[in-house]
């Protein structure tokens, strides 16, 4: 029962955060130069009319405004908009009024989710062994190499790694892996590698520190004294205990990974959420922009919630 209570509490928190995000972005875009009305295709199409027949222009604009609810007071607009967003009724795009936002996002969002999940998974698969090796070979050259590589992975942003990858596999090792587009699993490999680099660094560094700490503890000494063999001791007593705490490190990394996906998609020309967002923001397509921010935010928070739930299941000491 505790878990139901915990999850519902967190979901309420997530909804409050999302309401705040939508309101803040709505208010900021409402007051941005140009405003909702003046950058839309409707306004551009009507521009010639303004000179010829001002009265008709005013009438058409007024009708247009009342149709989109833009004549309501700001707080009512926001309340209405929040309700529609939270019920997944995203409406139509402003620059391509015939295009449904929901349909556009239904195609692109799964790709972004897949990339982010793949990156986090890969970073655990690679980062944990690296951290273990660094911890066991502490203060030797192996440790320094692993530490430096993981620091480099953290320092260099995913989009720079992405262009390096494109350079490597597009020019030097031509034809081994595809460097652009989306369609089969091969095209996901390079983007996921680029995205996971930063997390590999974080995971490896954390794993190293945590394992060193664990190996110093009393129960490891007891195990050694009992005559437990080296590898079973490391894996069962050391690594297993370090792993549980590591899950909390992965949670905050989701935000960076998701942000990374929208950059990496630009370089690899993957038709995912990043492309939609870029189109929305550079063409002042306000509904599409707010909706993509809303979805990105909910994606990050839902992933964080999942991490917390998994953590509670794995570590019996954690009370929900």
């Amino acid at each position, binding site marked *: 029962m505790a878990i139901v209570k915990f999850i519902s509490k967190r979901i309420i928190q997530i909804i409050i*955060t999302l309401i*705040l*995000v939508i309101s*803040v*972005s709505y208010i*900021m*875009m409402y*007051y*941005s*130069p140009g405003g909702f009305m003046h950058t839309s295709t409707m306004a551009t199409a009507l521009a010639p009319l303004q000179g010829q027949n001002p009265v008709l222009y005013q009438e058409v604009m007024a009708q247009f405004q009342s149709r989109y609810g833009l004549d309501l007071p700001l707080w009512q607009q926001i309340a209405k908009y929040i309700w529609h967003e939270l019920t997944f009724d995203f409406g139509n795009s402003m620059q391509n009024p015939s295009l449904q936002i929901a349909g556009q996002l239904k195609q692109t969002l799964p790709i972004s989710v897949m990339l982010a999940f793949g990156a986090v998974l890969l970073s655990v698969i690679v980062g944990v062994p690296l951290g273990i090796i660094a911890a066991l070979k502490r203060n030797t050259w192996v440790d320094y190499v692993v530490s*430096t590589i993981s*620091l*480099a992975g*953290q*320092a*260099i*942003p995913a*989009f*720079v790694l*992405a*262009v*390096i990858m*494109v*350079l490597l596999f*597009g*020019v030097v090792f031509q034809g081994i892996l595809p460097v652009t587009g989306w369609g089969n699993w091969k095209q996901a490999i390079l983007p996921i590698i680029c995205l996971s680099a930063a997390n590999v660094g974080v995971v490896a560094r954390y794993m190293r*520190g945590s394992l*060193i700490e664990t190996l110093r503890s009393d129960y490891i000494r007891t195990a050694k004294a009992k005559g437990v063999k080296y590898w079973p001791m490391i894996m069962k007593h050391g690594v297993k205990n370090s792993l549980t705490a590591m899950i909390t490190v992965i949670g905050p990394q989701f*935000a*960076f990974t*998701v*942000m990374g996906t*929208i*950059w990496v998609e*630009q*370089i690899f020309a993957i038709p995912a959420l990043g492309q939609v*967002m*870029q189109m929305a*923001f*550079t063409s*002042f397509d306000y509904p599409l*922009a707010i909706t993509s*921010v809303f979805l*990105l*935010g909910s994606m*990050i*928070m839902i992933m*964080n919630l999942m991490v917390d739930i998994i953590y509670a299941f794995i570590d019996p000491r954690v009370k929900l």
Partner: protein
Amino acid sequence: MASTVTATQSPDTAVSKQRRRSQLYQGWKRFKRHRLAVIGLVWVVIFVLAGIIGPWVAPYDYRTGDFLAINQGPTWKHIFGTDNVGHDMFSQILYSIRSALIIAIGATLVSFIIGIILGLWAGLRGGLADVIIMRAVDFMMTLPGFLFALILVIMLGRGYLSLILAIGIPGWAGYARLIRSLVLSMRDGEMVEAARALGASQAHIARRYMLPNVVGSMGVALAFGIPGDLIQIAGLSIFGMGLRPPIPSFGSMIAQASENILGFPWLLYFPAGIFAITLLSFLFVADGLQEAFSPKGGN
């Protein structure tokens, strides 16, 4: 203990001055032990110098292209090659360093100042102000600052000042949390309590005990902040929301070069390489500072 009392009675004597200098000196000595951090520092200094003197040493203007020499590889005339309208890449990079540094340092300062004000407010006032500010910090930390930066760019535009504000304003949360925790640890810390019990004045405690501890942590936070902001600027440019086109920037150079990477890969070598090395250097320096100045840094 005895020396503390002496210092309390005459804080500006030679003893206390030497002590303070030696604290910094010891930090520097610890920093020097990290070879990578020193190498990083050298590169950072070169980078900053290039940003300052860039316009005077750049062989070509960033706006004019040499149409007789487009898409060239490195030659003696254009040592880093030229792009698709004949811009000299070496000059472009020098100007990019300048714009990147102006925005990154400006944005870091903006975040830092907002963070100091809100962090001090939360830490010193406590009560409802503390609760509200810490809730806001949690809110800002859940979502990536880049999202807020994107929205702010739409609102403010794409000039230098707008980009400084767009990147700086969402970044305050981390600094506010750090400063609040420093204030709390200072206010209730044993060290300060001991000094107070010995009869040290408030001003003396602030200068002699609080400041040295705070400066170290803040320096480390700033050293981590600048490369983070450099990444955000480049990310905005890749998104097509950075500085307006004639002004060169690392992000736009990387984005442009990646479009025809198969034809002219050398356009990528220098911008991407220099950008990556710079970020790495900043991180090594920050890492070195952390181990040199933060009490728990060493492992």
